[in-house]
């Protein structure tokens, strides 16, 4: 046991040196860093590392150079054939944005059937995963198994299994509005003047985020960015206005519409779906319109 531990500590030390020198290390570098290491131990350690696939071996100007491989690619190498490696590398390159199957085929020059087989085998090894894209529901992209999909792919906090959660957004929207409305009245008749009142009625996105987090209505934690998106929907609802503080942070304030509900929407015709078919004569007419009768009663 003791020798195994010792060996582990040696390999770890060598790995640490290799990490410091991404261009590669030679035998000399190792012996300079580890004067106490005997050449025999060094050879066994390096052999073990090479076997694990942690190192690539290069011949540079007559001297042997060991270079550290990227940590993840060493897993793929295990028991994989060349096609799998190529496909794996392509997927790895795409990072958390993912890569479309057609792009893989084009860049790897593999036949569709073969590629499918390769992807399946990689998937079964849990090296990669397929993620549905929110923008185009049919488009699948592949990425490494351990990666969190990018916002543009998963849609961020507002998507669950690629489904937009409108109810969640609505609830957040309402809560944000409530928070802003609690402050909105401070501008009215503020004894310290309207500018002071306005500052009090403003809320920054961070404050709103804290309020939402304290409420505990969201299972996932929301970023300030997410809250800003919600606050912006309030602005588009006409229920809030936004402004910028001198330090560049956005602030929000609940407002009312400039005019009360106009007459047009108070009468049934203003909201009637049949208004464009309505005529003094004909089946749809104002004289015996049932919407109007209802309204008049």
């Amino acid at each position, binding site marked *: 046991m003791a020798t195994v531990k010792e060996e582990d500590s040696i390999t770890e030390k060598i790995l640490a040196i290799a990490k410091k020198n991404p261009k590669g290390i030679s035998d000399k570098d190792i012996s300079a860093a580890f004067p106490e290491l005997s050449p025999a131990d060094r050879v066994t350690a390096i052999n073990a590392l090479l076997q694990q696939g942690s190192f690539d071996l290069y011949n540079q100007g007559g001297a042997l150079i060991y270079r550290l491989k990227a940590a993840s690619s060493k897993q793929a190498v295990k028991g994989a054939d060349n096609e799998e490696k190529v496909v794996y590398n392509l997927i790895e390159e795409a990072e958390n944005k993912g890569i479309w199957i057609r792009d893989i085929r084009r860049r790897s020059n593999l036949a569709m059937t073969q590629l499918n087989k390769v992807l399946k085998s990689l998937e079964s090894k849990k090296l990669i995963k397929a993620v549905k894209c929110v923008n185009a529901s049919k488009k699948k992209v592949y990425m490494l198994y351990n990666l969190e999909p990018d916002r543009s792919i998963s849609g961020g906090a507002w998507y669950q299994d690629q489904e937009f959660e409108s109810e969640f957004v609505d609830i957040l929207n309402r809560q944000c509005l409530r928070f802003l409305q609690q402050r909105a009245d401070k501008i009215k008749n503020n004894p310290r003047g*309207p500018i002071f009142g306005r500052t009090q009625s403003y809320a920054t996105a961070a404050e709103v985020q804290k309020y939402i987090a304290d409420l505990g209505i969201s299972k996932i934690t929301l970023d300030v960015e997410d809250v800003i998106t*919600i606050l912006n929907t309030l602005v588009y*609802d006409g229920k809030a206005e936004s402004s910028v503080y001198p330090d560049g942070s956005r602030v929000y304030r609940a407002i009312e519409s400039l*005019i009360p509900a106009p007459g047009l929407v108070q009468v049934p*015709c203003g909201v009637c779906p049949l208004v464009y078919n309505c005529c003094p004569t004909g089946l749809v007419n104002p004289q015996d319109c049932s919407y109007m009768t209802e309204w*008049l009663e």
Partner: protein
Amino acid sequence: MSHQLGSLVSEILNRHFGEIVQKVGDDLFSFGARPVAAIAKTTEIPRIKVVESLRTLLKYDLVTFEPSKNEVVADYKIVPDNILLLMRYPRYLLQIKSKHGSEAEMIVEEVLQRGCVTATNLLVTLARKYKDDREKNISIVSLKDMFISLATAGYLQQAAVAEVKEGEGGEVPTMVAVATIVPELDARTLVLAMNEGAEVTDNIYWKVNFDRFHQDFRDEIMIDAMTRRIDENAGELMRHLLMQVYLNTPPWAASSTPVPALQLKESARRGATERPLLAQFVDHYLRVMEENGCGFVRRSGDASGGQFVVQMQRAAKETVYALLEHTVNERLGSNAARIFRLIRDKKYIEEEDIRKHAMVPNKECKELTYKLMEHHFISVQPMRKAASGGGLVKAIYLYYINLHETAHTARELCYRACHNGLRRAAAARRAHARLLDKQRRVRSVVHSMRVREDPQQHIARVEETITPPERQLIQSVEKQLKQLSTAEIELDKALFILHWYFMYKDN
């Protein structure tokens, strides 16, 4: 001059003047300017009746005339905008009553009813009418003073004068507008005229200056908007500001001449007992209004403590947007209103970006966008790339709001709603004509019996001729009619906002 407007105008004429005038109005609306003979021919109404109706219409400024080509006969032309004002009469009365009291209301009411009238005639009739009314205690002298103050404030103006051009051989006079000169009425002659019916020669005719009322309505909209957006003090400051603007700017200018802040401070100080906060923080309020007041007010310079400009055109635009947003919200739901505002905010935007910002599910978002298109609330601008072989080049579709067109849509919708309301009211009146007539007769009988001081028993017996079910029915009909007329006034308010917006040509 849409079909919708035509049917609304026709319905209003029918309501106020009856069927014959309605027919004449319809004819004028569909054919444009034409002489009496032509009207008589197409409407198949006897010439004398046509002339009568035209006379009525002319009296209320609902029709204008000008010499036709041969300069012997006159062509008559309908003025739909003025006809729409007939719906606004109750609002004028309410406005003048709340501002100048019930005496002013009486004067304006009388002038509205008569179309145009001379000052002495007006005052004498009014004084005679209320001579016996002890409660109101109205004297001709106080009426005269009120008349003069109304004329000074511009609510009444001199009617245009007919002038026949000499030497051109034409017999058709042209109407020439006259600058209003506030008259000096002699109280003694008025009293004499009232008591003894002495003749007073007075050939200056007066009519109501609608424009002045409209300025008041506009100011109120702006003050209300500020009150809603900021607080009552800001509304009050807006009132002071608009008061200054009234004095130094032509009424419907796109933006006012600058008002110095010093003057505003002065007027705020005068109202300090009522609004101490405003007097204390005038500068602060001005700044908040400038920054958070939807651009109603803009700082234009720093001279004499800051100069402020009221941007009327901008205010009209913002108000119309608010109106449209309400309309979209009620017609297509709050998510559609969100998309509408989003498009407004981004000016030109792609469908994909709408979805991203609006936070509405993909499918619903598309559906609502297309519905907004269908209802003409938004427009689309395709951007095609230059032809470059292959059909793969996708055109980009940008959505935007053409406010002018959208406002038009809303106006048409208002016309439609108004027309339907009027039509419905007319139908209700027709359906229950017998009952309403009976009630009217009973009322007049009861009234005359009360005057004669008949015993209560007799009066009760007459009143009983209306049976309880009838009474109930009358009540429900009256309630309906009342609701319809309230709706009419509300719709007219919306029309006013739209009209205000269309007043500025270069929108």
